């Protein structure tokens, strides 16, 4: 047995040679995969890369058109009809668990799996898309007094050299009294994944709330959304609760209470009585205090 130990060295060398040469995915394979996906991809389809660590390479080759922020920093996968999983090393994304594989093909060392969403829900209005002076008004509520927040376009504040940085403050945003801002940015959530959402933060001490009125929202069978707090805040659970309450046509739809420490969590409120209607949707965030709170929501077909 002892005399066989040098074989370990031989295997080690063999594995090393394989891992540093033939296992590496060449650029041509990525380009071929991109072209294959591009030929079939529809607006309601998702592109994702497996394993997650290969994501930067995938984004580089697929570009914003195929794997831009909306797809990369999605709230979840339910809004996508089909998913194109571009995988290497036999990896598979857990998010597609339960999806039906309808096609698979290879481009060199890359496997493209096409999966169908068993519970696809068509999005009617995405609140993230409505953030801006045309469709959204924002006000800070302090002890019942409502102070309008103003829309500003300017340079963003995406952090400095220190880590953790805190979330980026987008250049385009509503600025409220007391320094609070409302704008769209990508949240680094507790799961370390990106989520494009509406930051309503920070509200500072006291009972301040921020009220957002989204105009011209087309309602569906449900209001579907998520909430989260910047990961560094979130990873130390606290008893604090942050609430986002939704209402439309002067009637409450529902409210989500986010517990600091819960991570990026989803909520859904049925709105069968609003199906097909178009009007204002009001979202009021309270209890955020110093936290970098972020939420997103959409109206969609399909009841929860």
């Amino acid at each position, binding site marked *: 047995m*002892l005399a066989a130990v040098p074989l370990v*060295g031989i295997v080690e060398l063999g594995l090393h040679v394989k891992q540093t040469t033939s296992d590496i995915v060449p650029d041509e394979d990525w380009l071929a995969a991109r072209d294959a996906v591009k030929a079939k991809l529809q607006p309601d389809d998702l592109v994702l890369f497996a394993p997650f660590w290969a994501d930067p*390479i995938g984004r580089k080759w697929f570009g914003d058109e195929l794997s831009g922020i909306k797809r990369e920093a999605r709230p979840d996968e339910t809004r996508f009809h089909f998913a194109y999983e571009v995988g290497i090393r036999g990896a598979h994304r857990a998010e597609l668990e339960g999806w039906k594989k309808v096609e698979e093909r290879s481009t060199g060392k890359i496997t493209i799996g096409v999966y169908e969403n068993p519970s696809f829900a068509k999005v009617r209005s995405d609140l993230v898309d409505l953030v801006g002076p045309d469709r959204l008004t924002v006000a800070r509520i302090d002890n019942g007094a409502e102070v309008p927040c103003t829309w500003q376009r300017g340079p963003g*504040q995406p*952090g400095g*050299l220190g880590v953790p940085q805190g979330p980026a403050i987008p*250049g385009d945003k509503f600025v409220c009294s007391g320094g609070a801002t409302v704008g769209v940015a990508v949240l*680094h959530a507790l799961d370390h994944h*990106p989520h494009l959402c509406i930051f309503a933060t920070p509200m500072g001490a006291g009972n301040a709330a921020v009220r957002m009125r989204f105009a011209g929202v087309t309602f569906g069978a449900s209001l579907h959304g998520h909430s989260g707090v910047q990961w560094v805040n979130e990873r130390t659970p606290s008893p604090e609760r942050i609430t986002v309450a939704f209402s439309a046509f002067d009637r409450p739809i529902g409210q989500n209470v986010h517990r600091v420490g819960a991570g990026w969590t989803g909520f859904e409120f049925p709105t069968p009585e609003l199906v097909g209607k178009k009007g204002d949707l009001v979202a009021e965030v309270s209890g955020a205090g110093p936290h970098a709170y972020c939420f997103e929501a959409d109206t969609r077909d399909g009841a929860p």
Partner: protein
Amino acid sequence: MSEEADAKEAKESDAAAAKKTDAAEEKKDAGPDLSTRLRAWVRANPDPFIGGGIALVYVIWLLATARSLGFSRDEGFYFGASSDYSRWFTMLLETPSKAIDRASIDAIWTNNHEHPSLMKSLFAISHMLFHDKWKLFDDDSTAFRFPGMMMMGLALWVTYMFGTRAYSRRTGVIAAVSLGLMPRVFYHAHLACFDVPIMAMWITCIYVYWRADKEGGLGWALLAGVVYGLTLETKHNAWMLPAVFLPHALVVHGQAMSRHAARSSRIPVPTSLVAMATIGPAVFVLLWPWLWNDTLPRIQEYVNFHVHHEYYNIEFLGQTYFGPPSPRSYMPVMIAATVPTITLVLFALGAFDRARVLVAQLSVWAGEAIGRRFSWPKSAPARDRQQTDLLVFLAIAVALGPFLLPRTPIFGGTKHWITAYPFLAILAGRGFDLVWKRVELLIGRLLVVRSTTDAATLDGTRRLVAQAAVALVCFGGALAATVHSHPFGLSAYVPFAGGTAGGADLGLNRQFWGFTTESLAPWLAENSKPGETFYFMDTAWASWVRMQEEKRLPPLRGVGSPADAELSIVHHEQHMNEVDYNIWTEYRSSTPAYVLTHDGVPIISVYRRTHARR
């Protein structure tokens, strides 16, 4: 201790050869000249030169690869501190009275006083001599880094000497080779940091203590005291060394101490320990000017800094840890994933062999104590007065033990227990000994089959060649992996763990310290314009400035935020994802212009602003 016939044979044959030479020389000339005697001495004592040769080759390798390795965050801070200390050394030479004035000391030595002064002083002196004065190195950084590289040379030399003296010359050679062919060690050995230096001083201190115990006499004991002081002055790991020495001394000298104490009411503590307890702290204070004033409060401050050190983020198995409890599996998993597997297999063999001897000794001792004979071992193992095996195991256990405690921070990756590696390598060398004996037996049998005689063996040269071939077969993978890991040493995982991609699959940390920025140089040279603004993320400002001054990167203008930059980068670590996402928000794009990879695994993403800045 040495049960190795090979080692004895080798030494005896060397000594015999030297004697013969001496005799021949004496016949020619009654009084051989100095060079003749020197040559004879070298032939009789080849080990320091063999070890020195290994160390020299390795240091040359480090120097040859230094230019392509970017500067880590900590190096940036130490370059700055060492430059400050240079001013003090100059002042000490020119106006000594001013230099030892408290105001001068505090103005200079307060910088980076959370770490002792030895290495930073050596970095400074090396820079003053090898860069400024003698212009041996073109790069300031190489001059700063040189003492760290020399410390790696020292570590290899002592590892070789320890392995050779304790077990066999073959053990020594393989121990040094194993230590040098660890990709993480190779990376750290380049740096103007303290991790490889403390590894070198840890084994040097233990080696000198062992020699002091073996040789006796005041000289070795005093040396042990001085070396312990230097170890204290290198890094705070030295605080743990008493946990190696005291139990070992108790086992080796316990009986004698108790007998002596019973007779004379005095406990005779080994001189080396007394020296370490007295000379050690004196050297520590003497070499660190910051401690010359307010000594005790400042020592307290130094200790408090490390005892209450903040926890940094580090990914392990897909989870970022940032505070206690640290996962107990971290250290064993990281060792398995980063130390070449052949080294670990040989270590396991060597450790099992030596542990068996230790247990056999314990069994014999216990049998003698209770007046009966156990069925195992059949015969008592060779007596080792120095209890070398125990010392080796203690050196490993004390270095690794704290990483099984839940409150020990793990952010340093493998470098924080790097002190265990020379001893791990020595046992790997011992394991190779066992393997070689079996291989030699096998070769002998094959030769018998092919020859007409029934006692075929390899002659000296063929035996040496065969040993080298077996060593090459064993360590070819480790050599290839170590060479290939550069300059991404912290991203490298061993082939049995899947290599760099395997590490990424397992969710193991891919890098820290932001040193990989320099590896963007070829792409930046092609894709950036001079003076363009560049956000360099985790690279320390001082490291960035040094890279620019040494023209390791194109002439970009470094800025502190993606908001101010045309080009922004993110070093891929799980907890750095926020930087990535913040750049998406700022640049309104998630598409990198370039992704620097190692074996297909993203190391850095580079983004270029495509929308006009507001």
